[in-house]
């Protein structure tokens, strides 16, 4: 299968007063057609900056300093961020659902004005046809009374409803790829479940691909086909959803899985936190960035630079770690000691 998006060695940096922040430092990944991919990591790991780089939405002091973003055979980095080529792609072929439905809609325009504009600009539709299409789309994403609510302003909608509007907006031009960046973080769990079910059915219906950026391992377990785990601006592990959850290999992934309380936990189970803190992205060591927090490190980890993503033999699983299979197994079976 040919991937619809392929990112190669992407590097995005921010120049700050205290130094150069390597927010994304050599990230490579791909998205296949009609695939749901999860990108998981904690705050500051570069998962959002990666997606914003793909959309070419990085503003000063941030800058994309290297890599390739291949979409439909073209390298998006050859275009100007605000040039006509990017504007034809952004919102039409690749669209985004942002984290905060409160701030990503314009409060002084009606929902209709904001959605109709997209169809007029990208598809050259007449206002009348566009309005009809927008009503259909709002109806499809489950907004009751779409034909009258189209003339309401964002503040007339609840958080969940606004995020439905955002999803409708993202789907309007039937994009190849939808990037959902923590789309439900500010919302309640029952609303979260509604929205993810909606997004899943919509991407299946429109035959789009979906990237879910999140820190919630449960969501990717439920919806993703394939998963990338990010840490300190790099991908540390990649594999199919089942493979990652059945046989996590990177000590960070294993740590994450053990540190979250689960609904199906036995009573009295103790969580195993990952000790320490994520590294400072300004003073990154050349060795593995997880080394200070890893209790399974070997001599090689301390002397040699952080390895590249390597394929685990006999699997379709990639991991950025020197440890051997036995060490990973030991790491997985290790439970709380204190």
């Amino acid at each position, binding site marked *: 299968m040919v991937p619809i998006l392929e990112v190669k060695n992407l590097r995005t940096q921010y120049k700050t007063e205290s130094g150069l922040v390597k927010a994304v430092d050599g990230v490579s990944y791909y998205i296949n057609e009609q695939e749901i991919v999860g990108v998981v990591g904690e705050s500051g790991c570069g998962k959002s900056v990666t997606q914003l780089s793909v959309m070419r939405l990085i503003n000063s002091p941030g800058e994309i300093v290297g890599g390739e973003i291949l979409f439909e055979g073209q390298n998006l980095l050859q275009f100007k961020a605000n040039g006509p080529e990017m504007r034809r792609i952004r919102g039409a072929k690749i669209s985004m659902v942002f984290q905060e439905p409160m701030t990503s809609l314009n409060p002084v325009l009606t929902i209709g004005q904001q959605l109709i504009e997209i169809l007029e600009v990208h598809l050259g539709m007449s206002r009348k046809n566009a309005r009809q299409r927008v009503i259909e789309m709002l109806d499809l994403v489950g907004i009751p009374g779409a034909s009258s609510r189209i003339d309401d302003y964002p503040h007339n909608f609840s958080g969940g409803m606004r995020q439905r509007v955002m999803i409708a907006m993202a789907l309007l031009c039937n994009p190849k790829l939808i990037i959902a960046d923590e789309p439900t973080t500010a919302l*309640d769990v029952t609303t979260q479940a509604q929205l993810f079910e909606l997004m899943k059915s919509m991407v299946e219906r429109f035959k789009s691909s979906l990237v879910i950026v999140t820190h919630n391992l449960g969501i990717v377990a439920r919806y993703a086909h394939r998963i990338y785990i990010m840490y300190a601006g790099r991908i540390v592990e990649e594999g199919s959803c089942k493979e990652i959850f059945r046989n996590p290999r990177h000590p960070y992934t294993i740590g994450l899985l053990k540190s979250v*309380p689960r609904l199906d936990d036995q009573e009295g189970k103790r969580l195993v936190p990952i000790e320490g803190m994520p590294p400072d992205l300004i003073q990154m060591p050349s060795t593995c960035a997880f080394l200070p927090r890893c209790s399974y490190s070997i001599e090689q980890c301390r002397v040699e630079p952080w390895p590249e993503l390597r394929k685990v033999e006999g699997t379709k699983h990639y991991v950025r770690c020197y440890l051997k299979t036995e060490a990973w197994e030991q790491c997985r079976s290790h439970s709380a000691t204190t």
Partner: protein
Amino acid sequence: MSMPDELILEVKDLKMYFPITRGLLKKKVAYVKAVDGVTFKIKRGETLGLVGESGCGKTTVGRCIVRLYKPTSGQILFNGKDISSLPENKMRSYRKNFALIFQDPYSSLDPRQSAGNIVGEPLKIHNLVKSKKDYQERVEKLFQSVGLDPSLMSRYPHEFSGGQRQRMGIARALSCEPSLIICDEPVSALDVSIQAQIINLLQDLKEGSLGLSYLFISHDLSVVKHFSDRVAVMYLGRIVEITTPKKLYNNPLHPYTKALLSAIPVPDPDIEETRKRIIMKGDVPSPVNPPSGCALHTRCPIAIPECKELVPLLRDVGGGHEVACIRVK
């Protein structure tokens, strides 16, 4: 848990209505019924989890207990004494018996006070220290008990990470040796890997003390279930179900609890494949004008016409499992 059945807190039919005023004369036009008849008990040494979605009134319950709000009606019995209508001057001395841990470790610490001062101030206010030396020692001990280096005492909040700040908040809460700590979303603002550190710390503190009780308020059922001895589920100002975490997961009875459980994904794709999903329709209605009868009837998959009229009361269906639903036998 030396005295297992001694009640530390009993809340009876607590109501908190916030008036909506309009115009120059502040005429009351309506009420937000944030808490509308909540009853529960906490035993000494017990952790009660209070879970619900935003706007269900869980935070208001916590704030009423420490009397940051004066309840509209109902009783709050602390060690058997009703504190719901104590005057403010008498309330002040009572407050050393409870402490609050807040959600946001960034805005809940005074940026202009040193870490040591933030943690130690309650000791001074309640005259719990005899001398400067005593004070210094107590604060140092508090720092150590939450895993902070006492040498950081003279630093200011902005020099700490989110997890460390939450530890400071916990040290401050512990300073007066309270018998009840109300944790209001204590880990929601923290990163996944830091959350576990704080949860474990709170658990250790409880095990290391004699009879410390928690009221643990959160929207995250996984965290609440992990942490609590009993869990109360709230919806629109009322408790709909109270039971042990085990029963809640294995045998939820209230339709809202069922939907809430099924909405939370388990980080395991093999389990996820087989789980039933109940997707609730619509949004949570406004607490200004909540639905009549059972507040859930507008969204409930098993509602019958009677649900519109009868307000279901919490009743014990066996083994301390309480549920408020007329459809549950």
